[in-house]
């Protein structure tokens, strides 16, 4: 812009400072309108997003429990896992999915679990084969781990393959890549140890809750492999 020559005249009266009330009010109105819009878009998109989440959970159950052709939702009531139909479940009641093969034999359960990751909550689903007492598949449903590092918990197929025949007892342990010696260990991801350990922790916590319930229902002892 062109430079004005300096003139020795009284400068025009400075614009009056707006009052603090006006400033606060402006922000409040902006915040209020923004809030209204945010809530509206949330309510408009919620049904579609919920439907997608339910559908993607169903799809994931088939993937973490190989050979599954039909599934049934179960809740834990009065010391037993009980099958529930749509709408029978209380709103906050935790549930797991039983998977059945083509001859209607029960293969095992798909269990959804969540816990703290490196940045935000990680939500995952894993399949537990109740006959072989092994974890047979794991899929991360939701996470905001660091792109390029922590997101390998679902992008790195070698890491995901750790969970294809994993002994959950006495508990799962993450070890440095290539140092796996027992069938209850997984290879952690180099550069994303926290995310790898978070996955292990989430599954261990969930196992402590659900495995006794599963085996109480089916009448197996589960603390050791020999029985």
């Amino acid at each position, binding site marked *: 812009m062109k430079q004005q020559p300096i003139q020795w005249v009284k400068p025009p009266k400075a614009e009056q400072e707006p009052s603090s009330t006006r400033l606060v009010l*402006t*922000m409040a109105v902006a915040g209020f309108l923004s809030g209204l819009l945010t809530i509206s*878009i949330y309510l408009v*998109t919620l049904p579609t997003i919920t439907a*997608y989440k339910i559908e*993607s959970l169903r799809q994931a159950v088939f993937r973490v429990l190989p050979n599954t052709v039909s599934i049934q939702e179960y809740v834990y009531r009065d010391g037993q896992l009980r099958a529930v139909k749509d709408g029978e479940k209380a709103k906050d009641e935790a549930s797991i999915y039983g998977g059945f093969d083509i001859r209607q034999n029960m293969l095992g359960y798909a269990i959804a679990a969540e816990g703290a990751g490196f*940045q935000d909550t990680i939500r995952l689903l894993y399949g537990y084969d109740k006959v072989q007492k092994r974890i047979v598949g794991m899929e991360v449903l939701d996470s905001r781990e660091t792109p390029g590092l922590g997101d390998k918990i679902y992008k790195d197929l070698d890491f995901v393959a750790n969970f294809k025949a994993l002994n959950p007892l006495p508990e799962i342990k993450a070890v440095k890549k290539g140092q796996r010696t027992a069938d209850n260990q997984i290879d952690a991801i180099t550069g994303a140890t926290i995310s790898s350990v978070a996955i292990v922790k989430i599954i261990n916590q969930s196992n402590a809750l659900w495995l006794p319930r599963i085996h109480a229902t089916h009448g197996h002892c589960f603390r050791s492999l020999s029985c």
Partner: protein
Amino acid sequence: MLTQNSAPDNAYDEFIKGVWRENPVFVQVLGMCPTLAVTNSAMNALVMGLATFFVLTGSSALVSSVKDWIPKQVRISCYVIIIATFVTVIDYTLLALVPKIHKELGAFIPLIVVNCIILGRQEAFASKNTVYLSVLDAMGSSIGFLFALLALGGLREILGVGALFGVNLFGEHYEPWVIMVLPPGGFLVLGLILLFFNWFKARKPEKSLNPALETPHG
């Protein structure tokens, strides 16, 4: 650099400058975070570019229409609220419409809020110009950004996967250059494109150089 004039050829210029002469990525080197992070495929680049287009154009239109009511002491906070609202709208919309791509883009959709191209256009242009010109300016900048993302995403996908928009280009004998879709590939391809742009600019006569644009930051 900034003009209040609204002659038609000036309007055209406000639009076209963001696309090419003042391209936000290739010339101003702004918005590097999404540029490097989500351009591992052409599809991700396209969705990111369109999301930014929506946020930038919407914010510029709104900021330029309410600029007279916003005291200058709180203007930046108000711009951020406006931008964040548009980002929330596009975040939920993408989650509902294209959940798979939304999952791929992950944290980078909410991070559009802090894309300095957007706040930069509000402070440098929309807060001083008419709605008409601000929208043209925003559309120009976002198309320039979209073009840059697509160039990077397209090149990286072609080199790193041998495909474009998921369509296989070279058949099964092509050995993908995997590093191109990994983070280092973003730097390599961007560096090469910037090299080309600067070489292209240096070849042109001096008059086309605009010294105001020689300060990369952000």
